[in-house]
Every structure is written in C-alpha cells, then in structure tokens.
C-alpha cells in the first residue's frame, strides 16, 4: 500500500522501541513523532498509554542534562500532551514520577525549556486528579509566589492554575490573601490577555464564600479592583467578559453588600444573556453563570424577566442544543428563573417549549435528564391560576408522566432524585389526574424507591407519596395504601433519618385526613402504624417530627370511639410509668405549630357528643393536661388561644367557672 511507507516504522510499539534504544538526533526525532501523533488525538494517547509509553518518556525527561534543551522541551511537551484532556493520562504521568522533573526544569536557564515545563504542569493542574497543593506550608507558598511573580507568562499561568485547582478551604483562602497573592493577581489584571483571564479565574476561587478575604480585596483601595473587574466585563474578548462576570457574581453572592445597585445587576444580566450566543466553551458556561447570578433572588428574577431572559433562554430550546453542557445549563437557568415568579412560569408555558423540555427527559445524557426534571419541578411549583389555565392540561398528560415515571428506574441516582422532585410537585392537588399517574405504574415505583438503600431516594420517594396522598379520594388512598402496606409505612416512620420520619408521618397525616374509612388503615395489622407514631413521639427530639406525629394523632382522634381510645393509649403513659405525657411538653413548646397541633388533639379527643368523652376527660385531668391548658388562656398565638377556649369548655363540660 502506498500510504504505509512510514506506517510500519510509525507503529506505536516500534516508536517506543526507537525511543528507548536510539540516541541523539534519532531519539529527538522519535519524540517529536510521538508528540505530533498524540496532540489532539485522544485515541492515540490512550493506545500509547496502554503500551507504557509514558514511563519511557518520563525516563528521558529525568535523565536529560540541563543543557540538553531540545530533549527537555520535547519530552516535557509529550508528557504534557498525555496529561491533556485524558484522565488516565494524568494518572500515568503522575505514576511515572515525571512531576518533580517538570518542576525542576522550571529553573532552567533556557526560556523555551521553562515554557515547556510550565505548560505541561498546567495541563496536569487542570485535571481534578492532580495532587493537592498545600498552601499552608511555608516553602510551598513561597514557591507559588515565585511562580506568580515570574516574567514568563506560562509560569504565572501555572501559578494561577495551581490556585484554581487547589484552593478550597477558607484557611487556604486567608493564607493566600495574607501572603500577598491577591495583590499580585490584581496586578496581573493589567497584564497580557492570557494573564488577565488566568487571574480572574483564580481570584474567583480565592474570594468565594469568604467575606473576610473580600473585604481585604475591595477595602483598602476603595473599590479600584472592583471597578477594574467591572471594566473587564465589557472587554472585547468573550472569555474575559464571562470570567469577569463570574468573578463579580462570586463576590456579590458571598458579600451581599457589594454590587447591589440595579445598574450593575442589569448589566451583568445583559452581558450574560449576550454571551449565551457565543459558540464553544464560553456559550456553554454562560447559562451556569446566569443561574448563579439569579439564584434564590426574586428581585433578579424580576429583572431578568423584564429583559426577556425567559424568551431568550427558551429560544435556545426550540432548536435543541448539540452540546450537552449548554443544554443542561439552559434548562437549569430556566429552572432557577421559574422557581419563584408566576409571570416567568406563565411566560415559559406560553412559549410552547414544554415539549422540548419533555423530550429532554429522554436525552442520552444524565445531566440533561436531571436538569429537565428540575426545570419541570420549578415550572410546576405554581399557584392555582397557572395550574388551572395552562398546566392542568399540559402537565398531567401521559406524554410527560410516562417518561417521568420511567426516570424513576434511571441508573443515575441524581436523575431519580430529580424525577421524584418533579413528580412531587405535579401530583399534588390534581385530584382527577392522579389516575393517570397510578395507571402508568408510578405508585409501584415510588413504593420501590421508598425502600431504597439511598436515603436521598427514600426521602424524595416518600415525599412524592405524601403529595400524592394529599386530598386524594378514598379509592385513590386505598390503592396507594395497598401498594405501600402498613408494615413498610411503619418502618419508614422509624427510619434512621429524621427528615424521612417527618415525611412518612406527613404521609400518614394525609392518609387519615377525611373519612372514617381511611382512619381504619392506620389501625391495620394490630395498629402497627399508630404504635410506630407513638414510639417516635416518645423518643425523638425533632420538632418537625413531633408536629407531623401529633397531627396524625389529632386526625385519628376525629374518628369513632374506638379510634379515640387508640389515640388515648398512645398519649398517656402506661400504668406504673411515672413519666409525663409528651402532650404536656408539646403544649409548653415555643413552637406555635406544635402547640396548635397538640391543642387540636385534645379538642378532638374531648368532643362532647361522643359517649366516652367523660372518661377521657377524667384521664386527661389526671395526667395533668387540664392544668397545663388552663395556663394557656392567654397564648400569644391566636390559633392556639381559640382552641384553648374550646378545650377548656369541653374539659369542664361547658362550666367555664371551674
């Protein structure tokens, strides 16, 4: 074959042989050949790594003399390329022991050698597998400053990458700030284009969530640095604009007294919306920066709405983005934008992008699937007008429900959790549409997930079941309960995680809210559920669990004689047990909700028209509950105060003089 003249000598195995056996020019030539083969070529890198090329090259780097510039440059470049973009390559490079030799050549007199070493080290530090750099060690910090103060652009870039990769804790942030790193980075903002970008990137890492460092950073020079960064948000280079915005957003989110005026907020919004249009990495990262800017801030949601952010983001969804990261980012930004304001949600619904979001539920990438769920959850977190006008029709149709239920089987846990979140919002308050969900096998899968080993999955599954149970009709409740079974519910109430206990109790509370038939469920299997509720109320110390538990008892106490007696059994200590009833503790609580729940329970138990009311009143008197309630006639919570009046009337059979 004509093409293969060089192919046989170019074969990976042969090239490695030439590398290790030749000397001088021939060795250099072999190194260059390998470099030109692997740069930009992932497949080649992997095949060379597999046959052990990295240790051979590392050996050449280690044994080359200081004056052998060509060999040092080429071997460092090959090693750097192996570490670029391929995790197994970074691993192989670190295992080969090349790292200290790359550091060594940074002090070579030949500038080109230094360039090669710094570039390769920077490649390594761009991977999360790179060794953590310990800033708290004195000599390490000195070395870092040496790098940052270098005249060589690649070396300062390396310094910045080390910070971006390794600075995590607030102690490290403070140490870097104290050593003067911040000052140097700020001065690099006036350096070359690449130095500027590297500096912005590291600055964001050093100030993140650290008000103390930020105050040092913006304080002494009275905002000169801030205005320098603000200026860079208008730079010609899109990457610089994005990095400058990100830096300002980090400062703003960590130190809320800066950058609060509406002008800069609007400016950041407009710049980021414009950056969405950029091709490549900048456009992929812009929606994430946008989401960070508006996260949990209603005023910014409002501003974003006013500058048509919903429309602009939705435009990108009309034509499905090819890059996974961009798609994910746009969905997450929309999710954030629709998390609070009704007008954002209705705008999104009116733009007819719901189909695109639904399609994203079956996307190949787990990140996109998860982001689509989060977006649906946010859009469906709506008050009634949107629900009635728009979403009632579009949310609860099979087109959306079916893929959501399928995502409950997703191999990725984070997708499952996100899907549960979406389902939780959708199933609430759609009395007629629940049937669709149940028919798709949704309940069966929720019940499965409520038994998962993963506590996040358990929590979200129980939460969804709780919402599904909310104001459901009796046959629906019956169906869910049969699937779930009394024993599973009882064990969920006793789950090791308090948040799951709370959701399980809330689920039971929704189950027994309403007709007598549903109360029967908690007494199934010898009252296994009610006993579990009682046990938790006696043993736990979490207010949220108490509130839900007492409401369960309170709801059960609206039932017949038998039901009320069952509650009494849980409420009062058994004969011979001298401990005080938990209900007294709850009535004394500082938490309004807990007092309200507890007093409701007493009111329901002593409702005068039921035949055994008198005997229960006597028991409550004896347990000291009456005297506790008597002290509460001036409760600061109005709700409690009203119930106290009712309770006192019932406990004294209308004789308020007692």
């Amino acid at each position, binding site marked *: *074959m*004509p*093409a293969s003249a060089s192919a046989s000598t170019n074969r990976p195995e042969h090239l490695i042989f030439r590398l290790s056996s030749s000397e001088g020019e021939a060795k250099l030539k072999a190194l*260059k050949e390998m*470099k*030109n083969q692997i*740069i*930009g*070529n*992932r*497949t080649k890198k992997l095949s060379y790594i597999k046959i052990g090329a990295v240790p051979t090259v590392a050996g050449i780097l280690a044994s080359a003399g200081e004056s052998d510039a060509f060999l040092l440059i080429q071997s460092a*470049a090959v090693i*750097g*390329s192996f570490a*670029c*973009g391929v995790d197994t390559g970074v691993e192989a490079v670190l295992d080969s022991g090349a790292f200290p030799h790359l550091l060594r050549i940074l002090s070579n007199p030949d500038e080109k050698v230094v360039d090669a070493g710094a*570039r390769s080290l920077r*490649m390594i530090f761009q991977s999360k597998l790179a060794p953590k750099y310990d800033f708290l060690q004195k000599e390490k910090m000195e070395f870092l400053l040496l790098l940052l103060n270098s005249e060589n*652009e690649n070396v300062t870039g390396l310094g910045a990458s080390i910070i971006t990769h390794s600075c995590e804790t607030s102690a490290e942030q403070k140490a870097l700030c104290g050593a003067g790193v911040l000052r140097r980075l700020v001065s690099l903002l006036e350096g*070359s*284009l*690449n*130095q500027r970008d590297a500096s912005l990137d590291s600055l964001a890492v050093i100030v993140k969530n650290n008000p103390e460092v930020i105050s040092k950073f913006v304080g002494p020079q009275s905002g000169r640095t801030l205005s320098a960064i603000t200026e860079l948000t208008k730079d*010609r*280079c899109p990457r610089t604009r994005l990095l400058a915005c990100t830096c300002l957003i980090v400062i703003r989110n960590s130190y809320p007294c800066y950058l609060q005026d509406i002008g800069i907020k609007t400016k950041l919004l407009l710049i980021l919306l414009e950056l969405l249009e950029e091709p*490549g990495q900048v456009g992929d990262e812009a929606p994430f920066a946008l989401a960070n800017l508006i996260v949990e801030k209603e005023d910014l949601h409002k501003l974003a709405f006013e500058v048509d952010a919903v429309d602009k983001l939705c435009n990108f969804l009309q034509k499905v983005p*090819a890059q996974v990261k961009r798609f994910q980012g746009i969905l997450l930004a929309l999710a954030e934008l629709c998390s609070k304001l009704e007008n954002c949600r209705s705008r999104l619904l009116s733009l007819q992008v719901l189909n695109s979001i639904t399609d994203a539920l079956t996307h190949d990438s787990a990140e996109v699937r998860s982001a689509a769920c989060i977006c649906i959850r946010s859009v469906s977190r709506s008050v009634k007008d949107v629900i009635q006008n728009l979403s009632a029709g579009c949310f609860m149709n099979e087109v959306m429900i079916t893929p959501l239920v399928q995502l409950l089987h997703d191999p990725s846990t984070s997708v499952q959790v996100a899907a549960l979140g979406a389902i939780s919002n959708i199933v609430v308050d759609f009395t007629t549409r629940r049937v669709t969900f149940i028919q798709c096998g949704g309940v069966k899968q929720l019940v499965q997930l409520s038994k998962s080993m993963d506590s996040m999955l358990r929590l979200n599954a129980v939460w969804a079941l709780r919402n599904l149970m909310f104001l459901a009709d009796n046959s629906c409740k019956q169906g869910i309960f049969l699937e779930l079974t009394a024993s599973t519910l009882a064990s969920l109430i006793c789950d090791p995680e308090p948040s799951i206990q709370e959701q399980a109790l809330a689920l039971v509370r929704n189950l027994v809210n309403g007709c007598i038939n549903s109360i029967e469920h908690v007494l199934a299997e010898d009252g296994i559920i009610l006993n579990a509720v009682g046990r938790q109320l006696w043993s736990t110390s979490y207010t949220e669990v108490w509130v839900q538990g007492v409401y369960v008892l309170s709801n059960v106490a609206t039932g017949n004689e038998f039901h009320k007696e069952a509650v009494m059994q849980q409420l009062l200590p058994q004969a011979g047990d001298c401990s005080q009833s938990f209900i007294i503790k709850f009535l004394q609580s500082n938490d309004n909700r807990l007092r309200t729940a507890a007093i409701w329970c007493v009111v329901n138990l002593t409702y005068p028209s039921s035949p055994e009311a008198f005997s229960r009143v006597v028991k409550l008197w004896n347990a000291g509950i009456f005297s506790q309630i008597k002290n509460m006639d001036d409760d600061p919570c109005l709700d409690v105060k009203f119930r106290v009046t009712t309770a006192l009337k019932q406990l004294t059979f209308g004789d308020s003089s007692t």
Partner: protein
Amino acid sequence: MSVFWFVSRQLAAIEAMATSKKVITREEWEKRLSNVKIRKEDMNKLVMNFLVTEGYVEAAEKFCMESGTEHIDLATIKDRMAVKKAVQCGNVEDAIERVNDLNPEILDTNPQLFFHLQQQRLIELIRKGKVEEALEFAQEELAPRGEENESFLEELERTVALLAFEDVSNCPVGELLDISQRLKTASEVNAAILTSQSHEKDPKLPSLLKMLIWAQNQLDEKAAYPHINNLSTAVLEDPPV
C-alpha cells in the same frame, strides 16, 4: 483610542443641536476635524497592530524602525506566517508540526481547529488523487474525532463525499477543493496562534472603519455633512445639496 472619542464626540455635539436636518459646510466640518487632537503614537500603534496581526513581517519591521513604536517580537510573527503559508500551500502536515513546536497546547485544547486541519489534510490527499491513502487517513485519524463530536461527523461525511464524484469541480461539495477552503483553515490557525500569544485575533483597524460607517449612518438622519465614501482614499465628499 482617540479616534473613537472623536467619532462619538462629533455625534453627540450634532445630536444636541439638530432637530431638523442641519447642513454643515465643508469649511465648518474641516474646522471641527482639525480641532480634534489625535496622538501620533496612537495612530502608529493602530497601524502596527494591523501589520502584526495580519502578519506583514517586513512592513512591521520597517514601520517599527521608522515610527519608533515599541519593540515587537518579530520571530513569533515569522513562525505564525510560516504556519499560515504552509496551510495555504496545502502542506498541512508541515503546518501541524510547526504549530506543535510553537505551542503544543494550541491543537490539544482546540478540537475544532485540530479537526479542520486534519480535514484539510484529507482534502489535499483527495486533490492529489491518493484515494487509498485518503480513505485510510479518514478512517484512522478523522473517524475517531467524528465519534467524539456529531458536527465533525457531518463535515467528515461531506468531505469523503468528494471521492464519490468523477468530476469534483462540478459536484455539490466541490467548494471544499476550492482555494478559499485553504484560506479559511489558514485564518483559523492564525487566529488560534494569536490567541495563544495573548494577542487579539482581529486587528483593531477594520472595526474602527466599521464604526466610522455606522457613525456616518447615524449622523445622516440628522445632518448633511461631508462624507467619507471611499475608505481607501478617505476623501471628504460634499453632501448632496
């Protein structure tokens, strides 16, 4: 840059006075122009920026000496021009090796550029009629990139389609063989090298001229004044009366 100031200041001044269309005579206009001071050094920098970015090494060298602008590392321009020229002549492999010598990061962190260079290599093989070699190269080097990125795959399919036509000059993908394809790839490499050298990839001068035209258009709605219509001569032409 002073020229920007000039344009926007003129605009603001005229905006303030014009409610109906104002006529500005040539005399008046030239008086205004001479009132604007533009520093010679700024003009020189602008010219130098253009010469360096576009890679006119000799002109830059001469201009540097004559105007006394700050020293520029001419070696990096020469290297960059050598790469550009190699692509323009179809010696893509040579160009790739030169880029990798210059800075190995450029092609390692820029998959799109790397793909376009490899695609150009394939095009050159097809141009030379080396069918078997072209197929082998496409399979070995380009197909794996196509697997990594869907849009690369489409471009690869388009390129390989060249092999299916007897008369490539007259086929739907024939433009790939055109010289403009080489120039496109060459300017993409040029821009990437500039960026890696912390240099802006576009010269400032063309955008300044665009701004001039924009400003004139804005002004046209409010005033009649001497225009620059021919940018290469920059002669002021009287407004139609």
